[in-house]
């Protein structure tokens, strides 16, 4: 293979100098007469961020960052002509990512079972059916230390063991694919990209607990995921991987799909069970836990999509291997859907215990357009925010809980300096108020009251007592709500109150929104001394609140202004002030 050189200017601010550098580099190659034998390529993303000019030399894969013009000759001489690294300049490169759940996503064709089998698919199932009894399967899972990836983090092995030991003539295993957290879509990607691994995990789970039937509960908003799972199930039946005598063993197992109709609360296990039974998706008090009395009163094990996708690998590589990844209490990896104000939004799978800044800056590439990251939000509407001062926290169940957030299903929303924390709290709370089923009073009334208070605060009508009241209602909801939705709904409010007390104070006492997000507390003004009378703001205003012309200048009519901020965004000389 000939030499290939990748280059990219990774500076976050300023002009992209990749092309200029390309010319310089090419010049050096020409001097040496290498321009035809070496491929010099400008790339869009080189995996490093804010580290100046980055050069990668293939096939040896030497990586250099902060490369100066004067250093090009040395790189060409040592690494391109010779095959050696430039001493003292080499950058260590180790991807923080580790793919267990996403091992086949983007690798195999999800619609072809042969592709999955070629990646050791169904080998774990064959091994389990031939060599292990159900008790041993549960033991192995306990040894692996896998914890439920749906949010609460209950150890999967223990759950399987409890369900296995529960008395019942019929047992069920359910795959919870009702992923509803705003910004989270790991389960969708796994179902779409690697449906067979989830099915294999479910069959192994079914064998462990003694179930003969499994249900996929997938939200109807995921049509492609449903299509791929349906197709995969059909292929399994055609190949003797589902149905009677699976893979020639005596075990029989059937799978059906149930669609969720779009209620967030149906991700809660008791509500999910009611929904599968064909009833209204209301939660019911626990205990009895579904492991004892679940679907149609029978012992039922409910596992998340990501949890099940972990199972085949655990049995292929052994529980000891799996237990060696991650931290003491949180084993394995976790998939995060990194979204929001981050350069590379997408799915990230990292070992438990990875630091937040490694995810947000190292993999996500930091915020857009030279802005600074303010905080992240994990765990969806049940979680909380973590300010950037605490980005050295590692992601595992306990550490996140200590920070007042939770692991949750794996949404990680990045917020930058333009995001107002009161607004964020309001957003998540409104989500929970909309999705509250209304069965219990603390959640139904408490949520609405809290939302009213938050709206009051962001409208500039807040008084000091409101902040105390927010905390009081939060406490009542946490203590008295029937299910997880209500118990955790105040979390975003509590965590923003805890970390951003100053911001709440500014809203209440000074009637100001520090992030300039809350419309009622912001005013846009044209600063005459900076205005160049270009008229951009005039064109951008969607409601015609800006009047004037290119001779006289422009003025904003505060009565008509809706505080959308578009004039602020388009003004090049920064002559639109806000505050």
């Amino acid at each position, binding site marked *: 293979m000939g030499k290939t050189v990748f280059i990219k200017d990774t500076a976050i601010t300023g002009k992209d100098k990749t092309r200029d550098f390309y010319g310089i580099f090419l010049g050096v190659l020409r001097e040496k007469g290498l321009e035809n034998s070496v*491929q010099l390529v400008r790339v869009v993303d080189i995996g490093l961020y804010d580290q100046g000019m980055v050069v990668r030399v293939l096939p040896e894969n030497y990586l250099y960052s902060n490369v100066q013009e004067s250093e090009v000759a040395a790189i060409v001489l040592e690494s391109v002509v010779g095959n050696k690294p430039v001493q003292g300049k080499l950058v260590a490169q180790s991807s923080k990512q580790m793919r267990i759940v996403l091992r086949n996503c983007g690798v195999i064709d999800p619609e072809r079972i042969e592709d999955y089998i070629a990646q050791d698919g169904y*080998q774990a199932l064959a091994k389990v059916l031939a060599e292990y009894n159900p008790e041993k399967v549960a033991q192995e899972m306990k040894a692996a230390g896998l914890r439920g990836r749906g949010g609460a983090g209950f150890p999967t092995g223990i759950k399987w063991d409890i369900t296995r030991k529960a008395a019942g003539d019929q047992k069920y295993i359910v795959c919870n694919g009702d992923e509803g957290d705003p910004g989270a879509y790991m389960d969708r990607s796994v179902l779409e*990209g690697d449906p067979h691994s989830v099915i294999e995990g479910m069959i192994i789970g079914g064998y462990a607990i003694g179930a003969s039937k499994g249900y996929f509960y997938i939200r109807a908003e995921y049509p492609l995921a449903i299509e791929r799972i349906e197709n995969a199930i059909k292929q399994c039946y055609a190949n003797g991987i589902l149905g009677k005598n699976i893979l020639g063993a005596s075990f029989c197992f059937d799978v059906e799909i149930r669609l969720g109709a779009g209620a967030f609360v149906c991700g809660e296990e008791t509500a999910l069970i009611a929904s599968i039974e064909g009833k209204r998706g209301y939660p019911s008090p626990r205990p009895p836990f579904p492991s004892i009395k679940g679907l149609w009163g029978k012992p039922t094990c409910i596992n998340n999509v990501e949890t099940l996708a972990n199972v085949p690998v655990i049995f292929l590589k052994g529980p000891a291997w799996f237990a060696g990844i991650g931290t003491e209490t949180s084993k394995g990896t976790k998939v995060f859907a990194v979204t929001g104000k981050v350069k590379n939004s997408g799915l990230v799978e990292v070992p438990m215990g990875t630091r937040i800044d490694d995810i947000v800056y190292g993999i996500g590439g930091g915020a857009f357009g030279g802005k600074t990251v303010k905080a992240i939000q994990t765990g969806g509407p049940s979680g909380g925010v973590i300010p950037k001062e605490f980005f050295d926290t590692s992601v595992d169940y306990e550490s996140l809980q200590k920070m007042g957030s939770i692991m949750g299903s794996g949404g990680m929303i990045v917020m930058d300096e333009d995001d107002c924390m009161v607004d964020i709290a309001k957003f998540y709370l409104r989500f929970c108020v909309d999705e509250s089923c209304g069965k219990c009073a603390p959640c139904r009334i408490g949520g609405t009251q809290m939302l009213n208070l938050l709206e009051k605060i962001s409208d500039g009508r807040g008084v000091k007592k409101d902040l105390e009241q927010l905390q009081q209602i939060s406490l009542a909801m946490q203590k008295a709500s029937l299910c997880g939705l209500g118990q955790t709904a105040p979390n975003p409010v509590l965590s923003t109150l805890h970390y951003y007390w100053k911001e709440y104070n500014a809203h209440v006492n000074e009637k100001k929104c520090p992030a300039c997000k809350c419309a009622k507390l912001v005013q846009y003004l044209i600063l005459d001394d900076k205005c160049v009378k270009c008229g951009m703001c005039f064109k951008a205003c969607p409601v015609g609140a800006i009047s004037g012309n290119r001779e006289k200048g422009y003025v904003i009519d505060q009565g008509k202004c809706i505080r959308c901020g578009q004039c602020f965004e388009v003004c090049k000389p920064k002559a639109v002030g806000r505050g």
Partner: protein
Amino acid sequence: MAQLTRSDLEKIKAKHTGGNRSWIKVGFSTCGIAAGAQDVYDALVEEVRKHNVDVEVKKCGCVGMCSAEPLVEVCVKDMPRVFYGKVDKETAIRIVEKHVCGKMLVNDRIYDLKFN
């Protein structure tokens, strides 16, 4: 295929692994499809047919770089394996013409990322 057994799995695996045929993969999850993966796939298939090169165009799930969809991964003999991001029809044509046929990587389109 009917009733597979454990040994059949090994046989299928052996049959479908190995080989050094060149391939192009297009991400076909919701993120990719929404970004226009179907058009890219069609363009790639059409170009490969036109140039009559031995390369398999395949579909796959999402590799995780959702913001760079449609993603196209290209593996050609004696060339580095790379991801092209935000691929449109024109880039798809250039990938086949330059990368697959001409053995030259396409500038300004590669997302050089390692996942494992």
